[in-house]
């Protein structure tokens, strides 16, 4: 079978499962007693194992299998989670992730996992640090071998008996001359499954399917039919010699378990183990009732899984194609609106207005299709922060809020790395070591808040910690030392300007260079990366109290509202998101200060920037104007006024790139197609305010 067709599905799904495993393991670390979570983890691991085995990624499957073994013990209450187990499971997850990465990269998913497998096996065998757990695990291990019944299974059967169902122990023997043993056995199993539920079988179902049995096999089954019906049903399968059916009641079931325990205790020499054994046997009745709720928490989890909104996976390229087609439509719509305004026929105007409304709704939907909850970026952070805190030997709690905030897919893809940098920075430089926190009268555990929320046409992401805050004096000194600013300039800087210095290239305040951060590449990369997706980053800090980084991002990168302006014969678009207001000023209000033109704007002087000069638009002669149209733009807390020739109006525009041949054009961020089919360039206001 050609597996390539399924590869992308496999990759997507295994990523989902790995993510779920990661999340749930973290959850479990917070509540190690919650067997419900273990059940969920086990299911994920089991599915992953099945998928990888089907796809032929043996290493992936075998490692998952070992992890599953450990989890199996945990979910059946035979093993208590501790730090060693968590760490080993996390290591295993990391290995799985790198294997999947390898597969994505076209590799075979092979990796050296022997140490992890060894420690996982050690956990299963129980011969790692924890002695008591060791004997316990060993005891149960042998009891499984003894009767082929673990206490989970016997508890299910006990429950069924209590519930009035019949439990049978069936020994099926096939005829000596039987050719298709596996097929016959399959038919028996098929019948048993139709008439009830199979609890377990010896040998296991897999082994039976592979014909790894001699002539007979044993099945424990819960059935709703009588012994006779069961026998007839099984013996009606051809080539079956006989079915020996024993109906089990409470006592015989307990005996089965007890004899197994006794057998095992003979095998085990350790008195401690024997003790555990007896306890186990005695407590089996108790265990039955204690374990009875176990399947119950699983049920609501499944129900919840069923009610989750139904989704389909769509190739992002198709969404892009849809987006492109829609933008074509948008351009035609604008053209139609123009035509309707010229022709002035009522029925035409009405139709066009209706079309405008419909396409507006359509636009909302198309844009929403590309929206992804930022969760997909955030969900890897708890794990990262946990590991990082361990490495740094600090106590840190990460509190995430607003993970359901939605952002355009393109933004999501780009925002991950900058956030990693910021979080690392917060943990490394922000949060102090426990000792100094206690000395400063703060709680020992540092808190990092990661928030995302909508505000207007923007999404904000904040990383806030309650650490030491930015040491401004130190920042100043280093900035002067590294030549970022001169000593004179440094004196005039405001507090917030000093804070922004940490985003300058070549700046690092860490006293010693660590693995985590402090190579002086980081924050400046963060800043430029965020700027490249049309966002902005700022920082607030109180010394001793903590620091807050705040990232402002556009909601979408494909359709924006813009102000269309004219410079002589040329038309340009200015994104509405950076426009504060527009206005007209008479010539005499323009002042010249130190050779720069400034205007008085609401009580403060702001620079006047000639757009036609910046864009070398020679068809517009500014000097001849008595009154100048201005567009006041803002970048962070700085404002400036652009002079333009004429306002055309506000419009929804579709962002188009200038193509691979034209890159990095100063002050131009892209192009759009206007209603008349002409191309208009989009001005990048951020490049105009220095």
């Amino acid at each position, binding site marked *: 079978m050609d597996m390539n067709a399924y590869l992308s599905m496999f990759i997507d799904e295994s990523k989902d499962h790995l993510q779920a495993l990661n999340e749930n393991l973290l959850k479990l670390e917070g509540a190690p007693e919650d067997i419900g979570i273990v059940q969920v983890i086990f299911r994920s691991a089991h599915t992953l194992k099945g998928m990888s085995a089907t796809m032929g990624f043996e290493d992936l499957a075998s490692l998952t299998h070992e992890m599953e073994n450990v989890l199996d013990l945990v979910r059946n209450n035979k093993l208590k989670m501790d730090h060693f187990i968590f760490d080993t499971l996390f290591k295993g997850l990391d290995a799985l992730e790198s294997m999947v990465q390898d597969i994505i990269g076209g590799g075979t998913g092979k990796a050296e996992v022997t140490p992890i497998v060894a420690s996982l096996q050690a956990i299963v065998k129980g011969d790692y640090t924890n002695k008591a757990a060791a004997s316990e695990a060993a005891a149960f291990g042998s009891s499984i071998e003894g009767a082929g019944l673990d206490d989970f299974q016997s508890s299910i059967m006990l429950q069924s008996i209590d519930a009035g169902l019949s439990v049978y122990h069936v020994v099926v023997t096939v005829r000596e001359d039987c050719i298709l043993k596996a097929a016959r056995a399959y038919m028996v199993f098929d019948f048993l499954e139709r008439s009830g539920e199979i609890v377990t079988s010896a040998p296991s179902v897999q082994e039976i399917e592979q014909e790894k049995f001699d002539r007979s096999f044993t099945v424990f089954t819960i059935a709703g039919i009588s012994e006779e019906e069961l026998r007839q049903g099984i013996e009606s399968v051809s080539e079956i010699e006989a079915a020996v059916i024993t109906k089990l009641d409470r006592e015989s079931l307990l005996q089965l378990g007890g004899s197994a325990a006794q057998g095992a205790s003979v095998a085990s020499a350790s008195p401690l183990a024997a003790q555990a054994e007896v306890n186990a046997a005695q407590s089996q009745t108790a265990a039955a009732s204690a374990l009875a709720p176990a399947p119950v928490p699983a049920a609501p989890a499944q129900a919840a899984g069923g009610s989750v909104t139904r989704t389909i996976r769509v190739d992002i390229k198709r969404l892009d194609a849809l987006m492109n087609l829609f933008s074509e439509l948008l351009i035609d719509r604008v053209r139609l609106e123009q035509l309707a305004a010229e022709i002035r026929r009522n029925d035409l105007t009405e139709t066009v207005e209706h079309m405008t409304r419909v396409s507006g709704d359509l636009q909302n939907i198309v844009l929403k299709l590309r929206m992804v909850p930022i969760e997909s970026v955030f969900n890897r952070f708890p794990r990262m922060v946990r590991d990082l805190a361990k490495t740094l030997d600090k106590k840190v709690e990460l509190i995430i809020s607003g993970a359901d905030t939605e952002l355009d897919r393109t933004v999501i893809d780009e925002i991950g790395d900058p956030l990693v940098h910021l979080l690392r920075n917060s943990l490394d430089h922000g949060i102090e070591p426990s000792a100094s926190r206690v000395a400063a009268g703060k709680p020992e555990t540092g808190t990092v808040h990661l928030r995302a929320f909508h505000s207007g046409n923007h999404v904000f992401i904040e990383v806030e910690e309650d650490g030491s805050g930015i040491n401004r004096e130190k920042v100043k000194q280093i900035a002067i030392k590294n030549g970022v600013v001169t000593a004179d300039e440094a004196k005039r800087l405001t507090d917030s300007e000093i804070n922004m210095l940490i985003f300058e290239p070549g700046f690092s305040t860490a006293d010693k260079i660590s693995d985590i951060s402090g190579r002086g590449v980081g924050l400046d990369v963060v800043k430029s990366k965020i700027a490249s997706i049309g966002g902005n980053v700022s920082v607030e800090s109180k010394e001793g109290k903590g620091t807050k980084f705040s990232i402002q991002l556009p909601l979408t990168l494909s359709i924006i509202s813009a102000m269309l302006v004219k410079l002589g014969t040329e038309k340009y678009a200015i994104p509405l998101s950076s426009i504060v207001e527009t206005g007209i000023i008479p010539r005499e209000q323009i002042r010249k200060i130190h050779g720069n033109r400034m205007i008085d704007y609401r009580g403060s002087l702001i620079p006047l920037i000639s757009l036609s000069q910046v864009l*070398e638009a020679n068809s517009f002669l500014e000097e001849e104007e008595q009154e100048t149209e201005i567009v006041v733009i803002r970048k962070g807390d700085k404002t400036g006024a652009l002079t333009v020739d004429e306002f055309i109006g506000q419009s929804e525009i579709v962002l188009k*790139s*200038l193509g*691979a*041949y*034209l890159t990095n054009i100063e002050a*131009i961020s892209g192009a759009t197609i206007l209603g008349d089919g*002409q*191309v208009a360039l989009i001005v990048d206001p951020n490049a105009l305010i220095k």
Partner: protein
Amino acid sequence: MAEEIKVIVFGLAHEEYGIEVDKVRTIERMMPITRVPKTLAFIKGVINLRGVVLPVIDLRGRFGLPESDATDSSRIIIVAVNDLEVGFIVDSANDVIDINTDSIELPPEVVGGIKAKYLRGVAKIGGSRLLIMLNLSEVLNKNEIIQLEEQEV
């Protein structure tokens, strides 16, 4: 290896040039071009080609030939090389012909004043007709443009 290839023939400053047909997407009449500021003089701007914004280069300017105004016969040839899609303004585009790769000779040092590295070779067709085959990846070489920009600054 002798091989027949199809070539689009276009005119530029009284000479005939050729581009392989599989590199050409379409040939368009002149259309409004939006100027892009702060670019090299031979980059005339961008056009809207059925919803896609494409840069347009004046091939005369690119080769350092004197520029001339567009006429009725002027055409924009849209070519696609690697991931670059660019329009060339040429004086005329008039023919598609088959030529044999064997008939392409290595370019002489100087042909019509154009640097030899932009040329793949010269094909002789019929008796006296010479067709200059362009080396598109060199013509669209961005590194060279960056160098040119640095020289200008």
